[in-house]
């Protein structure tokens, strides 16, 4: 009998959900006809659901929609202001951090080491350039003699300028200029970074769960 009542409770739940399969309905009816407690329980459950559904739905105030829309707009504006502040703060923080790093490098004497380290790449770059030039010349020699003439004519024409540039480059590397160039490039990079972040517009801080 107890098992029947347990099974009947599952059937009663399905009945209240409107999910009771027609094939199971005779089982439930048969049990309810014999079991008064289950019959009473189902009756009480039905009445409980009925009074719950009959509870009056609260009526929104007449200004509900207008107030909601106004609050939504204000919230959106506040969100945008917060995001802009965050973007500005991030740019300033990046700039300050860059300046601080620069000051630390300069104060700690790493400045010259850094410049020397960068200059150490110069021979490698020159060798790479030579190899590229040899490669280009080989291609020209093999596949296009007429292009070679043109190439030589162009390089001959540009030679004085290239020589002049090479002299200027040698002078720049051998003087104190690299340090200032490096500082200028770093500051330019930081300024560009801050400007790009400020121009990037608001970022989304809230996501859909």
């Amino acid at each position, binding site marked *: 009998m107890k098992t029947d009542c347990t099974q009947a409770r599952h059937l009663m*739940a399905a009945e209240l959900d409107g999910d009771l399969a027609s094939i199971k309905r005779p089982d439930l009816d048969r049990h309810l006809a014999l079991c008064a407690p289950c019959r009473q329980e189902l009756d009480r459950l039905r009445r409980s659901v009925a009074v*719950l559904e009959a*509870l*009056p739905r609260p009526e929104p105030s007449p200004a509900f*929609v207008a107030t*909601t829309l106004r*609050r939504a707009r204000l919230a959106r504006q506040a969100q945008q202001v917060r995001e802009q502040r965050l973007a500005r703060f991030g740019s300033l923080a990046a700039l300050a951090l860059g300046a601080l790093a620069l000051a630390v490098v300069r104060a700690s004497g790493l400045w010259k080491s850094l410049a020397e380290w960068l200059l150490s790449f110069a021979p490698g770059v020159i060798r790479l350039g030579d190899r590229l030039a040899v490669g280009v010349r080989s291609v020209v020699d093999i596949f296009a003699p007429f292009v070679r003439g043109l190439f030589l004519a162009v390089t001959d024409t540009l030679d004085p300028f290239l020589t002049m540039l090479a002299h200027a480059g040698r002078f720049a590397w051998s003087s104190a200029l690299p340090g200032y160039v490096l500082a200028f490039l770093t500051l330019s990079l930081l300024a560009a970074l801050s400007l790009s972040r400020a121009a990037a517009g608001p970022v989304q801080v809230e996501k859909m769960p």
Partner: protein
Amino acid sequence: MDSQHAGATDDEASLAERARQGDEAAFETLVERYQRRLLAYCRRMTGSSGPAEDLAQEVFVKLYLALPTLDPLRPVRAFLFRIAHNHCLDWLRKRRVSTVPLAYPDDEDGRERDPLDPAPSPEDLVRRREVGLAVDRALAAVPEVYRSVLIMRHQADLAYEEIASALGVPIGTVKARLHRGRTHLQQSLIGIV
């Protein structure tokens, strides 16, 4: 899901998509469409009509702010009730007060009447008021995990799939919680109904 429900869902998806693209009229339509159900949910979850309207408006504001990141494939109704559920639970935790109403609110009395009985007698009104208060108290005594499902189903008229999506649980869990919630409620209402 019947064809009428499917049509309403399509319409709702179209409204949500337009609102997502910045159409305020579409968002206004969504507010008009769900304000009563959402208010009923907040009212029954908090057990008080005072903060319910404020909570319901905050839920719509949260939806509005989340519109740009809204998943177009997800039903907006379920998302709305998920926000409402979390918001009401937060409110209850912060307040840490009993949700048992001390008096049946006047603003609900007589506004939503039985259409078959448009002019109930004073005795009927008193009786309804007493029963309403008792049901509210019984509902407040049901654990939150079951109460939320009971209210979504029997006050906000959500389908099982929508409740499951709103709460992030399988449909079977929704049905089990609903059954336990009904059992809690009927035990609290013994002798009253």
